[in-house]
């Protein structure tokens, strides 16, 4: 709530926002690309192995595409961002808290939410959908490569079935989810950091709690978002 109130009181610093965008968006690419590629390839192989039994090899691309776009892409990218970005945010803000840097900020008439939370929150909202899209694309391309070159699926059928059964709402569902997941990571991580108590042990505990809380929240929220968005798009 304080983050929302912050919009009315203070314009976020562009310099801080760009810095966080670089840290979250640019530097997380290797993690989400690797995750997307690995997931796409293994999903392709598993789907092919099952579909091959019923002679539906060429439907593999469609399953991978829909699965990656609407479920695995956003969830796995968000979990990886929780580990890489969320943990870092909590540790950084927690260390600032226990070394009185947050108090120093408050004595300098700067609200911690305006100064520290908002740039991170906005950068995650902007980065999470882009990183998810990148992860999904890499996953689909990887699955196509595995399917065509290692599993012997015909490339044309693979692509035709994939584009025929993957609808814009599937892609949109993934992007909306990633936007929400980005907000969850930012809010949980910053909250845990700013309410951290004690010294180094407190920072470690807060970081662990942030990663666990954000990960569990993402998995639970994903279920309800799937139900809600399927009603919105397909009813």
């Amino acid at each position, binding site marked *: 709530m304080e983050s929302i*109130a912050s919009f009315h009181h203070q314009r976020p610093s562009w310099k801080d926002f760009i810095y966080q965008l670089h840290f979250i968006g640019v530097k997380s690419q290797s993690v989400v690309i690797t995750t997307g590629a690995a997931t796409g390839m293994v999903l392709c192989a598993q789907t092919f192995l099952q579909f091959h039994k019923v002679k539906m090899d060429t439907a593999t691309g469609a399953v991978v595409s829909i699965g990656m776009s609407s479920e695995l892409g956003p969830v796995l990218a968000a979990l990886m961002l929780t580990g890489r970005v969320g943990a870092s945010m909590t540790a950084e803000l927690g260390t600032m808290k226990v070394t009185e840097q947050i108090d120093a900020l408050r004595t300098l*008439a700067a609200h911690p939410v305006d100064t520290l939370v908002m740039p991170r929150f906005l950068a995650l909202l902007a980065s999470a959908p882009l990183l998810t899209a990148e992860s999904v694309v890499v996953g689909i391309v990887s699955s196509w490569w595995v399917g065509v070159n290692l599993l012997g699926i015909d490339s044309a059928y693979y692509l035709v079935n994939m584009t025929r059964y993957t609808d814009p709402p599937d892609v949109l569902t993934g992007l909306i989810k990633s936007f929400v997941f980005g907000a969850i990571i930012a809010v949980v991580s910053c909250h845990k950091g700013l309410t951290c108590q004690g010294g180094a042990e407190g920072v470690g505990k807060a970081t662990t709690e942030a990663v666990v809380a954000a990960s569990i929240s993402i998995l639970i929220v994903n279920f309800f978002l799937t139900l809600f968005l399927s009603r919105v798009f397909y009813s």
Partner: protein
Amino acid sequence: MIEVRDVTKKFGNQTVLQGVSLDIQRGEAVVIIGRSGGGKSILLKHLIGLLQPDSGTIRVDGEDITTMDERSLLRVRRKYGMLFQMAALFDSLTVEENVGFVLRRQGLESETEIRRRIDEALDMVELPGIGHKMPSELSGGMRKRVGLARAIVYRPEIVLYDEPTTGLDPIAADNIDRLIRRVWETLHVTSIAVTHDMKSARTISNRILMLHEGRIYSEGPTSQILESTDPVIYRFVNGISTPQKSE
């Protein structure tokens, strides 16, 4: 300027402040002394609204800050500068960015003027030309001086010092004391420090308050307190751990 009335504060079952009342006038140089863990820093943080009391009032220029929310407190805190015990410099920013943090955030002045005021503040704490350094490259004494520069660069009316000489060697401590005295004399600020360093208290104050068992035990001009024969004050000022046989 600052009126504290019957302030109490508990942390769990431990009562740290038990009805503290005090007044600080504009332009005074006050030192609050007391034993470690006695609540001096807690009291100091109450004066700037970093902590809120369980009961009691704290008025700054007539405004009760105990009823304000965090955003309202930001306005009041513009009157304050504070030097923290470990300086609390922002470790991701350079010295120059630390000192100029408030000026740039307020965005009221040109970059040239901001740089001039940063240089002026660093000159005042006798650290010219170190603006490009990171806090991790500085010694403890230098960090405190940069913290002082950051606290005074925007010309606050009140400067708070939390154990300004703790952790410093005698020469560095004396250097900080001289700077605190100079800031008080040249910028005409109200200076409030908490310390258990009696040499420092003698140098930087014209009035001393003693916090003992959660209350203001005694107050008076610096020389009067330091020369007091009251057993509690005498033992504290002279560092005597147990009552002497003659008492």
